[in-house]
């Protein structure tokens, strides 16, 4: 037999041998992984069935519960995601661990295979450690389901199980391929899980650091790292997949259980294939002698060095500045960032050289420090106009503002964020934004000089710009002066324009969004949820004064469901008349004290399909001028007979009087006072013939 034929046969045999060797060598991995799944899936199903036979009332209920559980199998994808992420890197460490010592790499790469064949055998071997257990678990679970479920439920149960298998295998494919990709760039087995973990969260981490730095440098810059761009989310696979793998069933939805984002899982599975292809390309170019190096690919070393220096500079620089309370001070922050950049540079150099003698790399360090200093200087002097940036109205698609900008009273209008899309409304918000920026730029000696401080305002804005971008700003403790209310260009004037816009206020309360007829609630009957329109709305008064003088909550539950239509209509009529829902800039102004009540009227709505929440509410502070609302309350809920709704002034003044009286009564009750000195007698020591000693304290 000639060499070509023999070698061709040998290639297949060699591949099979190496592939099989992985399965036999690393059996603890698939055994542990499979064992965890056995307990999560088939044994769990069996355990439920056994318990059900003992405790459930009748076989029908047991069958229903088993069917429901079988439908919930893909809920195990969340723990499955964690398992895939952990075992993905374990498998990569196992099958490509030979790359990390000279002895093993010399043995493996001397085998009669080329790099691509060897990689493929190892890669598939490692992947099989995860996929094969998945298949076995699915088969076992399917067998149990076929035994324990009625045949009518087989279809839905098996399709749910099939979906679990597909998604779990996709997750394993992605995380394992990602770990293998990382494995190609290092020659150190301990560095692999570290790189893998860091790269999983690198993008969001860097995003947070940059956001943190900008938030420290720029007044009002919003560090909304949790509200990151889609690109950041996609490049943070663990978080994105955690969200995508949610398996849930909205109570009101017909299709039943749904995977939140099957497309995202498919994209990541495809990315896994791409990463595997990239990994084999890197593997073919990787030098065997890199075993033991922290970074095995020479061209990646500068990237590693700069990356470590950059991240160390930002993270430790910001941390140290905040630790010493220098966060908002640009120069110390800059110096600290530059200093920590140098530290990071040398630390990276230590890893690369595997030596503590790294000061010889000072030239590169100086360059990196200079870059870091330039970055910080650019931020400090706002070279890019970040701090003063206010978008033009025609570039804004919508703006979300914090309810606090709508002043007082502190009811539903001021508690939640509000999204505005109308051109006029957006312009008013922009005017307020510009006024805040101007106020800050004017500084303490400018806008504030000679004015009496009146109110502190929190302004939070998020613009959604045309073209897809967002711009967020958060300003805290913005001073609002009473003298400026009629002065265009001031914060007070701009805020007043917002609070007097009835459309904005209506939107803030939610008057424009809610239609009573659409509200439904769920009731649990016969093991499932049912829609119940009558019980979807509830209303109550919070903070009414009872005839006994106590402040209580009065439920309007007796008038549930459609009976509350009248109250809702009355509220809308009062709001339209301007007698309800008026906003005030200053909490202690006479208008505010005399024209708002201590009492809030609360409507609770259950299940809001639009908002995706299980409940929502509209809270409006009552006013003494809200004729229609008060009339409804007098007629239907005992206003005037059982309770009253005092104004803020009445409440505060009454409370002060009551509090003073109560304090005196509580303070003197049960106590004795020395007649001569007026001091409280704490203790008397002595016999029947009179006190030997009297311990006292002075009252008040």
């Amino acid at each position, binding site marked *: 037999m000639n*060499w*070509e034929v*023999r*070698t061709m*046969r*040998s*290639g297949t*045999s*060699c591949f*099979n*041998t*190496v592939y*099989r*060797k992985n399965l036999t*060598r690393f059996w603890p991995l698939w055994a542990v992984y499979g064992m965890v799944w056995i307990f999560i899936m088939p044994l769990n199903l069996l355990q439920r069935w056994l318990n059900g036979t003992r405790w459930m009332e009748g076989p029908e209920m047991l069958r229903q519960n088993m069917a429901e559980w079988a439908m919930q199998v893909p809920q195990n994808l969340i723990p499955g995601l964690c398992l895939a992420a952990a075992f993905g890197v374990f498998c990569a460490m196992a099958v490509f661990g030979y790359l990390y*010592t*000279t*002895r*093993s*790499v*010399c*043995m493996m*790469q*001397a*085998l*009669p*295979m*080329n*790099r691509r*064949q060897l990689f493929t055998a190892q890669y598939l071997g490692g992947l099989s450690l995860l996929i094969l257990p998945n298949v076995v678990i699915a088969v076992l679970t399917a067998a149990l389901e076929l035994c324990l479920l009625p045949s009518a439920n087989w279809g839905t149960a098996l399709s749910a199980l099939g979906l679990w298998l597909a998604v779990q295998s996709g997750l394993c494919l992605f995380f394992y391929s990602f770990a293998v990709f990382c494995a190609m760039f290092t020659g150190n087995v301990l560095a692999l899980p570290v790189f893998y973990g860091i790269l999983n969260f690198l993008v969001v981490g860097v995003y947070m650091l940059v956001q943190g730095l900008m938030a420290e440098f720029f007044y009002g810059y919003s560090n909304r790292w949790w509200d990151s761009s889609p690109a950041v989310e996609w490049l943070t696979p663990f978080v994105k997949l955690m969200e995508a793998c949610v398996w849930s069933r909205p109570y009101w939805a017909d299709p039943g259980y749904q995977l939140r984002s099957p497309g995202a899982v498919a994209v990541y599975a495809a990315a896994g294939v791409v990463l595997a292809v990239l990994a084999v390309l890197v593997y073919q170019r990787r*030098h*065997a*002698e890199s075993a033991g190096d922290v970074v095995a690919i020479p061209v990646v070393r500068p990237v590693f060095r700069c990356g470590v220096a950059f991240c160390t500079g930002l993270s430790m620089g910001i941390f140290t500045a905040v630790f010493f309370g220098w966060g908002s001070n640009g120069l110390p922050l800059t110096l600290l960032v530059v200093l920590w950049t140098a530290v990071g540079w040398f630390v990276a150099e230590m890893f690369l050289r595997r030596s503590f003698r790294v000061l010889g790399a000072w030239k590169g360090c100086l360059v990196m420090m200079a870059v870091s200093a330039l970055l910080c200087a650019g931020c400090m002097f706002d070279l890019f106009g970040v701090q003063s940036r206010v978008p033009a109205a025609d570039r804004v698609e919508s703006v979300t503002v914090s309810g606090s900008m709508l002043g007082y009273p502190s009811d539903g209008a001021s508690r939640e964020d509000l999204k505005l899309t109308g051109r006029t409304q957006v312009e008013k918000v922009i005017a307020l934004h510009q006024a805040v920026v101007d106020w800050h730029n004017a500084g303490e000696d400018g806008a504030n000089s000679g004015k009496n401080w009146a109110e502190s305002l929190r302004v939070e804005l998020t613009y959604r710009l045309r073209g897809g971008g967002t711009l967020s700003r958060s300003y805290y403790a913005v001073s609002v002066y009473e003298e400026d209310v009629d002065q265009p260009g001031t914060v007070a004037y701009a805020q007043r324009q917002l609070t007097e816009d009835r459309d904005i206020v209506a939107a803030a309360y939610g008057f424009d969004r809610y239609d009573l007829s659409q509200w439904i609630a769920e009731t649990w009957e016969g093991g499932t949820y049912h829609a119940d329109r009558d019980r979807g709305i509830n209303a109550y008064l919070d903070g009414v004064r009872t005839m006994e003088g106590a402040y209580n909550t009065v439920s309007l539950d007796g008038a549930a469901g459609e009976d509350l239509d009248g109250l809702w209509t009355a509220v809308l009529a009062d709001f339209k008349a301007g007698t309800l829902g008026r906003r005030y800039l200053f909490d202690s102004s006479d208008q505010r004290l005399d024209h708002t009540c201590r009492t809030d009227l609360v409507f609770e709505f259950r299940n809001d399909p639009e908002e995706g929440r299980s409940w929502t509410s509209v809270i409006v502070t009552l006013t003494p001028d809200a004729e229609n609302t008060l009339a409804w309350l007098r007629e239907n809920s005992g206003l005037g007979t059982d309770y009253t709704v005092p104004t803020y002034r009445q409440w505060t003044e009454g409370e002060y009087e009551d509090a003073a009286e109560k304090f005196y009564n509580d303070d003197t009750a049960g106590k004795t006072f020395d007649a001569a000195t007026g001091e409280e007698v704490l203790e008397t020591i002595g016999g029947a013939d009179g006190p030997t000693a009297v311990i006292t304290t002075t009252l008040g």
Partner: protein
Amino acid sequence: MIQVNNVVKTFDGFRALDGLTMKVERGSIYGLVGPNGSGKSTILRHITGVYRPDSGSVSVDGKPVYENPEIKARIAVIPDELYYFNSASTRDMMRFYRGTYPKFDMERYEALRKAFPEVDEKAPIRRLSKGMQKQSAFWLALCCNPELLVLDEPVDGLDPVMRRQVWSLLMGDVAQRGTTVLVSSHNLRELEDVCDHVGILSHGKVLLERSLTDLQDNVVKLQVAFNQPELPQLPKDMNILHIGQLGRVYTLIVRGNPSEIKSRMAAYSPILLEALPLSLEEIFIYELGGEDYAVRDIVL
């Protein structure tokens, strides 16, 4: 069989191989000797297809070794530091090699059990002594029926009896199967007994490469004594590598044809003139002495 042309290999700026060129004839036993760090293991890893040269070429039977499964299937290697899978026994590794090397011979495996009677083939290799591990490696390597056997410090750790056993097996393979053996070792005495070709490496280059006979025929050790105590003025074209003196007897290491040098020396009428062959160790020491690699007299 093996042709290495101008191979350069650099590790983090260190030039481990500096234009190394060497040639190994089919069926020969080629001894690779050189001081520590001269690049012996590095060139062996190139020849087994593990390392990729920065420049130059390494070919076996005219075909490049790197990324060439066909060629690698004909090579077996015993590295200086053995590697085997965790908890794997000799039998386990045999199964692995049987699946990977096309010419793996099970009959030979059974036959060679007699040659390595002390090796417990079912015991994990990591539990065996260093010498036993080496025996296990030889056992498996010989069963692969390689055309080229690459050995890096192969008998290190073996007892004298087993060394002789192993060399005997290797010589038998060379004689009966035409196996080519490339062996790197510091045990020059042993290499001298088995090698027919020798290459001396220094600083990543082959300093000289010849058959052992040629090598020994090209250098001669003369022991001479004259009537006068001093050495007479010898001709400048006589390539003297080393001069030693013990009483009135001088020892000269001279490069060149031994008989020619002896006759030239006879012209000075020495009272004692004797030409002795050099051992490989002596050749190694005196050749590398010219490369600034000599034993230094250090007073501590």
